[in-house]
């Protein structure tokens, strides 16, 4: 085993990790603003993947298909909040809200299976080449460049929105202290709606970039959703940088685990989550909650 081999593993790991990071960011964004763990996040990724496949089958060029896919899944995310979680959040308990997101994930899966069938669906690479590009005897597919680049662009856009825009400031304020945000006149419902939409857009980016790499099925989302949760947990479930680091770390970990056995990858993410939960049982959110509970 030489250096090139490990670089190869590293590239594969980071590519996979980038997708996880996109999903994990969505989880964290929604969780920080609304306190909801959105189990349908993985399904939003799946819908994004399915849509881009359909648009490309219909002959749309990428520059049209990509933005339309992102916009549609953004709207789907908003709709999930507007139709289901928004009306439920006032009377809801932790359990009921979680079950609602679970229900939504089932609805999306079922509809996807009815609409797009059960067989895996494929689409070509965005920039097809005859052979993978070879750099220093490490071969990189063009699609993994797309993935890395795409996720980077998405991260950059998210960063700009959060740091430079009014709605971004409102999002950040709500994620730090929803109560204070409400008191200082921020429309928390609107902010939550945007958070769900943004999480949908991030998932869509992950899904459309991933579509050429794997066969998309209606069930793809639930597996990647779990990976996204794992990545978010590894990152502490509190911060967006944490989610990104967690995603990349999980991707690398899986790529290392695939040396031993390809069946092990899921096990590895479970193990990582369990270890993190054991070492940091309250994580970052724990500290905040204890304080709130005592009513200081």
């Amino acid at each position: 085993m030489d250096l090139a081999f490990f670089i190869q593993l590293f590239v594969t790991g980071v590519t996979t990790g980038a997708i996880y990071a996109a999903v994990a960011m969505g989880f964290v964004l929604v969780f920080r603003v609304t306190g909801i763990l959105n189990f349908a996040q993985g399904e939003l990724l799946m819908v994004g993947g399915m849509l881009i496949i359909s648009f490309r089958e219909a002959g749309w060029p990428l520059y049209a298909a990509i933005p339309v896919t992102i916009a549609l899944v953004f709207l789907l995310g908003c709709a999930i909040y507007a139709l289901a979680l928004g009306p439920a959040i006032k009377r809801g308990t932790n359990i009921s809200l979680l079950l609602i997101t679970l229900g939504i994930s089932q609805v999306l899966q079922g509809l996807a299976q009815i609409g797009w069938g059960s067989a895996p669906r494929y689409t070509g690479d965005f920039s097809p080449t005859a052979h993978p590009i070879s750099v220093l005897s490490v071969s990189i597919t063009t699609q993994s460049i797309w993935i890395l680049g795409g996720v980077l662009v998405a991260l950059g856009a998210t960063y700009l929105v959060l740091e430079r825009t009014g709605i971004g400031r409102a999002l950040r304020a709500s994620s730090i202290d929803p109560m204070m945000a409400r008191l200082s006149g921020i429309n928390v419902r609107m902010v939550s709606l945007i958070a769900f939409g943004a999480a949908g857009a991030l998932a869509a980016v992950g899904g459309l970039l991933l579509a050429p790499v794997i066969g998309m099925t209606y069930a793809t989302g639930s597996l990647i959703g779990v990976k996204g949760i794992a990545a978010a947990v590894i990152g502490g479930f509190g911060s967006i940088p944490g989610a990104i680091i967690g995603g990349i770390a999980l991707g690398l970990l899986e790529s290392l685990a695939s040396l031993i056995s390809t069946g092990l990858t899921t096990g590895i993410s479970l193990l990582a989550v369990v270890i993190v939960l054991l070492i940091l049982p309250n994580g970052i959110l724990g500290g905040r909650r204890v304080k709130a509970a005592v009513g200081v």
Partner: protein
Amino acid sequence: MSAPSVLVDAALEVHGITKSFGGNHVLRNVDMSVSPGSLHFLIGPNGAGKTTLFNVISGFIRADAGTVSLFGSDVTGERARKVARQGLARTFQNLQLFASLTVAENVLMALHGQMKGGLPRAMTGLFVSREENREYERAYEWLDRFGLAKYASSMPSDLSYGDRRLVEIIRAFASQPKVVLLDEPAAGLGLSARANLFDVLKELHAGNMTIVLIEHDMKFGMALADEVTVLDVGTRIAHGTPAQVQKDDAVIAAYLGKRSVADA
């Protein structure tokens, strides 16, 4: 000022409690000594650290330094439920009743410490446990004593806010604690509910129970109190009898400039 008698141990002795949250000092070297059977009034402007001190005493927050002892036994740093087992009961600023239990069951919960009820015993059996009937009757008597018997089988949400407060207080006293901490029991009550609460506390106090009270209504507290401790920005600035404290210059300064405490 009033040095505690050597013969009588303090019911609750707080010594040198210091607590800060992220560099923000909430309590600084606070001492408080509560004599057995007294009603101790803990006052101070908003943000003085009164509730934090309650949370430290009852084990919900761990202090950075200092000791807490109940009738001579050290409970410093013990968890809330351990402190409760040592005989400390409390109420909360924001009401903490069990919403899915009836009013009588809420009070009954306070009697659980004296009931057997292991898990196998709870799961099996077709018929009535005598203990359960007996203890229910005691819970009912507690309610009856304060005119709430008619609500025994109601849910807490069916009661007025003042009555809910009363239930929480009754629950605290029903566990037959050695010391009870009451955190703003009169907050949010109307005039008549407040008068009713005053009588209740007076009656409970007459039963020789040791009580520590936080309350914003000065007249309410001073009329009940035997001893007073005054906190300001995390430090104790005065302690003594109500009369002594009301004349204390530091206290008057802390409370709205020069107005006397009784008017505050």
